[in-house]
């Protein structure tokens, strides 16, 4: 790579050709502030519209200031990142942005998380020069089951637009209008529920302000907890334990399973269970379904639909219901772990406790916003009573813990309750891309071949590449597996299948970058994709430390089948653990 030398703030720095001033500065420890710029290096996601103009610097010999995020270094360039001209420009531009931004930071749900707030603090903004009663651009607010849009707070960084279109290829959002009234919105500025939005929430995950925030049911959870007539149980998704600690200042990648359980118990949940239990259950059902289809396929049955697609991710389910209505028969019919847990809790566990379904409140803690929507789907309710009553996010759990005066750091680690708290390493890795299919392979291999698996780690299925393909040897039968995370990659894979370019037996798809660990309910990464990498490693660390690492060996799962379900794909299973899909256009 060709190298060039430039001078930044009187320091010479050597950079690769093509590097931007922003990156060159970073190399020598100068952090130029940015607002619209977003670079998730590990995931190949970049948003660089050059629109906010906060990152401007002075380049000697240039007429105007240069946006450092998108100006390439040229040999001999002399850059000043903080002289009077630059500081004045940055401050003035920031004031302009603030002059069109509601000043309700104290009560904003992004308070403390907001990049704009942090920036104005950093820049020492103490007043906003503008005409009295300066006009603000205002828009209709939009509440959906998973997220809310308050676009008065939009600063047109376009991150959400880039994510929704270029990364996720969902196309729910676009910049609309022009000039002062321009904003990112669904078509006709209608509500998100009327758009193709999948509620993946990745727009929320990258929003630098409080314009896009999760729909928050924490208040209802608190009410349920304080209602003596209710038994409130909680399930926590695998990805939550790998990220929750970040909200309490712990290093990314710190596993806080035991502290999390302790905190939940101290919040007053009657039972603290694990979604991982349901994940093991999912593998039993989905794995069996996979083997059934492969078996029939190998027997030469013509109408067998392959590949089988995983169906744990509700945003992904929404995506194929919207865009692949012709392929609704290929995903696994197995419900997601969250919903399996809900169904078992309300139909099995409630009976064990001898409480009425209506008096058992099931709360889920999820890394995900789409789960908030999923638990509201009609098919997951019985007589208007949901299997999962409320879904709150990792971030919301953190603030609930904080607001209840619980000192997370000093908690003693505790264990999950039983029977719905036992889980295997296979369930843990559901939290990362490739994990579900690896878990399925671990079980399917043994069931298919009747042999014990020698090597439990399927490293060929792991990684953060957007699309991965691998072939697993099932004792002489090659099983072709495809993996994609982020919906744009899913689309590529699906289009390839539709056109006959790919031949897979099984495909795992997760809507969020890195899988659930990068979900929109997780602590915000603020553009640092290495955080996602750290969570990814933590998940596999937890797996390797587990005593049992294959779902079909989970003793409580075995017991559940013996006592209640019978066997995988039994009639009861079908009724409680499987679902069907809808063509969104026919709604």
């Amino acid at each position, binding site marked *: 790579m060709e190298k060039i030398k430039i001078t930044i703030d009187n320091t010479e720095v050597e950079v690769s050709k093509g590097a931007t001033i922003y990156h060159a500065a970073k190399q020598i420890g100068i952090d130029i502030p940015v607002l619209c710029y977003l670079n998730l290096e590990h995931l190949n996601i970049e948003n*660089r*519209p*050059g*629109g*906010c*103009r*906060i990152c*401007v610097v002075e380049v000697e010999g240039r007429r*105007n*200031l240069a*946006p450092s995020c*998108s*100006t*390439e270094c040229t040999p001999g360039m002399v850059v000043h990142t903080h002289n009077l*001209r630059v500081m*004045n*420009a940055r401050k*003035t*531009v920031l004031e*302009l*942005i603030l*002059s*069109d931004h509601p000043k309700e930071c104290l009560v904003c749900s992004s308070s403390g998380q907001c990049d704009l707030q942090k920036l104005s603090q950093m820049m020492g903004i103490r007043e906003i*020069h*503008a*005409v009295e009663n*300066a*006009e603000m651009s205002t828009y209709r607010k939009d509440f959906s089951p998973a997220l809310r849009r308050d676009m008065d707070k939009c*600063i*047109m960084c376009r991150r959400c637009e880039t994510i929704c279109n270029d990364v996720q290829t969902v196309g729910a959002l676009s*910049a609309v*209008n*022009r*000039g*002062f*009234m*321009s904003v990112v919105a669904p078509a006709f500025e209608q509500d998100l529920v009327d758009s193709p939005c999948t509620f993946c929430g990745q727009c929320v995950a990258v929003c630098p302000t409080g314009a896009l925030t999760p729909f928050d049911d924490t208040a209802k959870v608190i009410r349920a907890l304080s209602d003596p007539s209710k038994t409130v149980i909680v399930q926590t998704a695998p990805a939550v334990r790998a990220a929750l600690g970040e909200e309490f200042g712990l290093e990314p990648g710190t596993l806080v399973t035991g502290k999390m359980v302790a905190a939940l118990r101290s919040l007053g949940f009657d039972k603290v269970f694990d979604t991982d239990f349901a994940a093991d259950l999912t593998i039993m059902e989905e794995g069996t379904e996979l083997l059934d289809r492969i078996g029939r396929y190998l027997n030469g049955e013509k109408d067998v639909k392959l590949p089988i697609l995983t169906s744990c991710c509700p945003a992904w389910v929404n995506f194929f219901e919207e865009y692949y209505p012709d392929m609704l028969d290929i995903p696994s019919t197995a419900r997601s772990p969250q919903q399996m847990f809900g169904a078992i809790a309300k139909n099995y566990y409630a009976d064990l406790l001898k409480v009425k379904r209506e008096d058992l409140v099931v709360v889920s803690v999820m890394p995900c916003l789409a789960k908030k929507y999923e638990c509201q789907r009609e098919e997951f309710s019985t007589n208007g009573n949901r299997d999962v009553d409320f879904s709150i996010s990792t971030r919301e759990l953190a603030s609930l813990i904080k607001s209840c005066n619980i000192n997370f750091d000093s908690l003693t680690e505790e264990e999950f309750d039983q029977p719905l708290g036992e889980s295997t390493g296979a369930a843990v890795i559901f939290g990362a891309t490739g994990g579900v299919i690896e878990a399925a392979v671990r079980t399917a291999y043994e069931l298919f071949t009747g042999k014990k698996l020698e090597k439990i780690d399927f490293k060929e299925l792991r990684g953060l590449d957007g699309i991965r393909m691998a072939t697993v040897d099932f004792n002489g039968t090659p099983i072709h597996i495809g993996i994609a995370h982020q919906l744009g990659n899913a689309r590529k894979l699906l289009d390839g299948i539709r056109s006959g370019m790919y031949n897979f037996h099984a495909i795992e798809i997760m809507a969020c970058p890195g899988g659930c660990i990068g979900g929109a309910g997780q602590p915000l990464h603020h553009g640092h994709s290495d955080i996602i990498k750290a969570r990814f490693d933590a998940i596999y660390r937890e797996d390797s430390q587990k005593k049992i690492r294959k779902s079909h060996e989970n003793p409580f799962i075995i017991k559940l089948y013996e006592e209640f379900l019978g066997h995988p794909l039994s009639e009861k299973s079908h009724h409680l653990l499987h679902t069907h899909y809808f063509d969104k256009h026919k709604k």
Partner: protein
Amino acid sequence: MAQFKMHLLVCGGTGCRASQSEIIVENLKSEIKNLGLENDAQVVITGCFGFCEKGPIVKIVPDNTFYTQVKPEDCAEIVREHILKGRKVKRLLYEDPETQKHIEDSKHMNFYQKQIRIALRNCGFIDPENIDEYIARDGYAALGNIITGMSPQEAIDIMKKSGLRGRGGGGFPTGIKWEIASKSKADQKYVVCNADEGDPGAFMDRSILEGDPHSVIEAMAICGYCIGATKGIVYIRAEYPLAIKRLKIAARQSRAYGLLGQDILGSGFSFDIELRYGAGAFVCGEETALIKSMEGLRGEPTVKPPFPAEKGYLGKPTNVNNVETFANVPAIFLKGADWFSSIGTAKSKGTKVFALAGKINNVGLIEVPMGITLREVIFEIGGGIKDGKKFKAVQTGGPSGGCLTEKHLDTPIDFDNLIAAGSMMGSGGMIVMDEDDCMVSVAKFYLEFTVEESCGKCAPCRIGNKRLHEILEKICSGKGVEADIDYLKNLSRVIKDTALCGLGQTSPNPVLSTIEHFHDEYLAHVKERICPAGSCKALKLYTILPDKCTGCTACVRACPVDAITGEKRQAHVIDVNKCIRCGACYEKCKFTAIHVQ
């Protein structure tokens, strides 16, 4: 074939068509037929003559008779008197506003005397819908010479030598632009003609396309040969239906002659053009925004570099020039780079087309050599200020430009001098203002335009211009304070320094230049609460002239805020502090005793 002795050239530009020039053509033709003069006189519909103030224009050659404001009912007289009997119809001749003399020969009109027409060489001269007339004037000869006898680099060298700079506003040397695009390697390249003229008050590109579409097509083909492109795209405003029509006709004719298409003139070079329509977004005049728009997207500019010459339309190297720039190209190759560079100033060669408008006698389109002074343009060609008022300022460069004043009248006009004076060439709009124009309001007017046309992508332009406008509004409504002027200045400078594209980077120019040249006027607004030009409604000062007031009390009853007091049959007084400047008293007073300042 009949040998016509006279040609009646009738302007078929948008302006004259709006005043029934099509009917005029019909009437002239039928009267010629009536009198059996079909073999003597030919009626030709041409492009714009530029003298839009007095349209519709009928020009008769070879005697250069210039009839102005011709009405359909005048046609019979023109034919009977002039064509048949050789007597000019005096009352329709152009009358010099100074001498009040009718001028028989357009060569003697001040309007035309100082003009040199290169880009407009065929406008008002040929029938734009007839390719033969273009060919008769050496049309496509430049293209033919180049593609059969020159290497692309040789042609580029001529362009560079000519010193032609982009006429769209920036003034980037055209030859260098072509050279960069020619050196970019790609399987496909594009030549784009920017005809998305959007400056309010500038209409030269439209006039060229309406009056001489072939010159643009020829130049695009030349450019295509030079940079190695076989495809050309004209991005044109949808609001220009006539220009679109003429361009389409021209392209069709060129194709029929094989001057567009495969293997042009047996040279092996192929080139064709297509049209794309703008849809009402000023920012699409900026080349990166234009490219986005051509791709069917929102016309939002992108950060440069990469420049379109490296990565443009569909990611391919793209050369974008505007209409006027292209219109110069064939002439340069026909007459030589030396000829072209002999016209103009040291760094600005050739001519520039300006659209003269505002409070000036001769509104119209003119083409003058670079280096001409504003005084010559406004007072000689433009015929001075309307209604004998006093010249105050001239705005050049549209919303991106600034105001020039009395002290700039003798500055030679070229790219660099205008920038040094705080304005810019822009696309060539020139709006003349007189003593009745309030410069704060003028700045406000332009900001209103920018606010409406800002694409909204970058914060300084989206919000900053809005705030500038709000402050100007505040000053015009009499609520401004002195600190506002300082804030205007700082905000303007920051917007210039930080905005993403040319639109934002130049949008504060009207504010900065009016503050610089008319600081007193701003001060009068904020300190004395007076609008010296008397144009800001909220700053009008109403007083009662005691000697005229009869004390009838009509005004007292009209005043909605009881600001007028006085005894019956005694002179009344207006309390300035109470007065809301509604003007009700002024309307009611029968004795013109209310004085407005």
